[in-house]
């Protein structure tokens, strides 16, 4: 199992750093530890590729099918990128512990995407969250980082409580922790008040994980204050895993009590709730992002807006929308990781992430800003970058969910209108980088070679997946088709 490989890797990383590298320079320690961790992840990926097509252990507690394999490979790849990006960090001497926690979070995510059981979902979600809380607080010299971590922790543990409450109600209603059995037990009970509470608390719990309005308060602070690799990790890999399991829990576990969000034909169930959350997230995320002057906060609010778009896939809850969600979130993760890597480099040279620090970036670091160009425009949904096809496919699948009636058209119109708004603030950032002149005392920005290489790779992937979406899409569609058999 890949999870075991990652746990073993994590322990090796910790002990190697503790036993042999204690007195070395931080950079060397990071280099050794990161290569070990990446190696472990690569081995994990190979293991997954060789694993049997379908397994189902302990009544859905541990699943393996092409879809979980795809997600696990994606998560491991994102982990590798995060680890490689952290090599040039200088904020901590606890190198082994840092990478250990990242791998532990990865383990949590690997379990999370490959299960159908409420217990495993909750435990792995907690493993993931607890690792992320500590990662957020890792820069212990910075009090803002601790403050953000505390906020994250308080909100997070509250939402975990909600989630657990919802799960226990579900168990009470269905006498099972397996999603499929729950669905068949609660089928047709859509008016039961207990079920309504279970739905609401579950939505709150996951809404927090994916930073949807009104459960988004932690996001701007964490994005603003935590160290860059951790933010990149929270914004990419953790989002991928959380969104996928959110989809699974709602669509599989609450099958039969969806309700409907069709305009003027609202039917109560979880779909209209999510439709409202999606609409609020898009509106608030985009409009508040306009007013931000810190680039990290700007990306935090844009992440909230993107969570709103992605919730459309849950509202549509079809196989096609699952494919669209996976495509969207993977390409979003690539672009976000890349953008945060660039921010990290700029921050290191200028000392802050204010918009003005990016002035004249295209003159100070041409290659880096060309990559930033690709990431930001991909987030804005401009072709030929991956984000465009992601949006196109997501909106299309939402409309296609109710083919006869165009019932979700109102949400799609809102989403497309909001992405027009988002272009404004994305262009504000690019305007700084490409239009504004560098400050008088600014010199060329030194970009570490490894970071540069990773960023270029990410930008190339963003461009490639935009020009040839079929490369990834075919894989996703095949995996979904094979897993639903």
């Amino acid at each position, binding site marked *: 199992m890949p999870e075991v490989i990652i746990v073993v890797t994590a322990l090796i990383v910790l002990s190697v750093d503790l036993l042999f590298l204690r007195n070395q320079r931080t950079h060397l320690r990071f280099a050794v530890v990161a290569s070990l961790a990446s190696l472990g992840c690569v081995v994990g990926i190979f293991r997954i590729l060789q694993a049997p097509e379908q397994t189902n252990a302990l009544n859905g507690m541990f699943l393996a099918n092409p879809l979980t394999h795809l997600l696990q490979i994606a998560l491991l790849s994102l982990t590798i990128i995060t680890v490689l990006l952290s090599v040039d960090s200088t904020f901590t001497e606890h190198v082994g512990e840092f990478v250990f926690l990242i791998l532990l979070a990865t383990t949590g995510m690997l379990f999370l995407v490959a299960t159908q059981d409420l217990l495993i979902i909750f435990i792995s979600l907690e493993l993931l969250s607890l690792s992320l809380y500590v990662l957020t607080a890792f820069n212990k010299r910075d009090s803002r980082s601790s403050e953000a971590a505390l906020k994250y922790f308080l909100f997070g543990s509250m939402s975990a409580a909600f989630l657990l409450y919802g799960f226990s109600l579900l168990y009470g209603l269905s006498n099972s922790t397996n999603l499929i059995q729950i669905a068949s037990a609660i089928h047709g009970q859509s008016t039961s008040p207990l079920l309504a509470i279970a739905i609401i608390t579950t939505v709150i719990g996951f809404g927090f994980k994916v930073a949807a309005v009104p459960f988004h308060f932690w996001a701007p602070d964490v994005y603003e204050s935590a160290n860059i690799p951790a933010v990149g990790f929270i914004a990419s890999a953790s989002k991928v895993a959380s969104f996928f399991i959110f989809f699974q829990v709602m669509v599989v576990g609450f099958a039969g009590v969806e309700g409907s969000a069709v305009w003027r034909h609202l039917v109560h169930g979880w779909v209209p709730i999510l439709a409202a959350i999606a609409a609020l997230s898009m509106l608030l995320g985009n409009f508040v992002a306009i007013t931000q002057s810190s680039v990290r906060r700007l990306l935090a609010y844009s992440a909230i807006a993107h969570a709103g778009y992605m919730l459309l896939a849950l509202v549509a809850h079809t196989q096609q929308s699952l494919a669209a969600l996976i495509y969207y979130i993977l390409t979003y993760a690539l672009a976000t990781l890349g953008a945060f890597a660039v921010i990290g480099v700029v921050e290191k040279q200028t000392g802050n992430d204010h918009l003005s620090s990016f002035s004249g970036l295209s003159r100070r670091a041409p290659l880096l800003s060309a990559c930033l160009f690709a990431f930001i425009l991909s987030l804005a949904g401009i072709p030929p970058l991956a984000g465009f096809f992601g949006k196109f496919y997501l909106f299309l699948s939402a409309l296609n969910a109710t083919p006869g009636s165009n019932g979700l058209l109102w949400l799609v119109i809102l989403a497309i209108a909001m992405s027009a708004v988002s272009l404004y603030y994305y262009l504000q950032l690019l*305007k700084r980088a490409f239009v504004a002149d560098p400050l008088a005392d600014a010199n060329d920005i030194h970009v570490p070679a490894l970071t540069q290489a990773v960023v270029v790779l990410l930008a190339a992937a963003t461009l490639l997946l935009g020009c040839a979406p079929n490369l990834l899409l075919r894989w996703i569609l095949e995996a979904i088709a094979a897993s639903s058999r």
Partner: protein
Amino acid sequence: MLAWTIYISFLGALALLLLPKASTTAARVLALLVAVAGFGIALNAFLTHRTGELITVARHPWIPALGIEYHLAADGISLCLILLTGIVAITGILFSWNIERRTKEFFAFYLLLIGSVYGVFLSYDLFLLFVFYEIVIIPKYFLIAIWGSTRREYGAMKLALYSFIGSAMVLIGLIAAYVVAGAKSMSLDALAGYPFPLHFQMFAFPLVFVGFAILAGLWPFHTWAPTGHVAAPTAASMLLAGVVMKLGAYGCLRVAMTLFPLGLSPWGFHVLGFGSWRDVFALLAIIGIVYGAMVALVQKDFKFVIGYSSVSHMGFILLGLMTLNQIGISGSVVQMFSHGILAGLLFAVVGRMVYDRTHTRELAALGPMNLNKAIPFAAVTFVLAGMASMGLPGFSGFVAELMILIGAWHAFPILAICTGLGIVVGVVYVWRAMQKAFFAEHALASSHSPLPPISIPERLGAVILLATSIAIGLYPQMLLKIITPALNSPLFEGIRKGGWN
């Protein structure tokens, strides 16, 4: 072969970025070579395909799961516009030979823009068309924001947001149409052949039409045009007025009207005298013609005069489309070509020949400079371009506007008369600008330092544009011969059925 107009422009943009930092001249020459090559390919296609029927340029599966293809094709209408793009691209580079700051990047963005414009005109799959249509937004933002003049960041952002809102409307319409048609294909002819229900067309047509028409300067969504044109550097104004506004008009004709022809049919009731979307948009077009001309009449800034004149001339194109008869729509296409050439020329005179030398565009300040003596070439060019723009016989503008007026006379006699008012005012504002800028009576003895003479690239560019305009004016059949069969193709059958006469 025709597909290489796109590829060569994109490759050229990439090659420019890889050039060493200091090689300014190399960048210009490379950009010019790429533009000439693109023009050569376009001209070759224009000369060889004289039947105007649809030719497939490239067709490969792209996203098979959604039925989306990489499908490039050209018919008479697109061939005309591709040729226009080639000409404007070359002259734009000639008129921006004096760009010294960040030259490489300037031409890289420029070629990126040109390549995507070729792409829009050649796309036959609507997804592909939309992709190219959106790519255009980004280079045009940066061309204006980095190398522009008056209020450049404001103008650039306004243009980018208007374009993006327009394309958002188009996107909604396209996705909805795709889903309603069974989510099988995004190909233009497959969707145009699908019988969309009437109520759907009634809502999708105005959405997509207005989405495209925002970029074509439809009143009251035209306000980006004057500010954008004024803020832009000369080459970008030329491209913007010359080809980018044509993208919008082309989209109206090629997408909105072919996909949803029933959207133009009568509502069955009247609101404020309007009986159909066709009436509404025809009236908006005429308001654009008259309003643009009137506002151009009172401008103090030379470039604003040209900016508003563009709004007025683009009104003719939209009016021609709404006539729904062959002569009106063909006239529209000829006007797209003609206005592309003339707007390019006018912006070149104002932005490059005059402003880059005098550093002012105030008509009142230009008068005393005695420009007709100082730069006679500019004065002569402006007089000729102005005459063409007024619609004097012998120039391309005459043919196009005449055809549109005849078409409009058949369709909306009363509105056609109002259009006449726009033409009269059109004569006056050109006259006024010409007189104030070049032939002011109170011209003082020139106390200014002598202005630099008009350079060779500028002369060359002006001659190319003027010659094209005169050639079309004298022999419009050159374009019409391939436009007419294109309009008679099955693609436009829907429009022909409703109201074609």
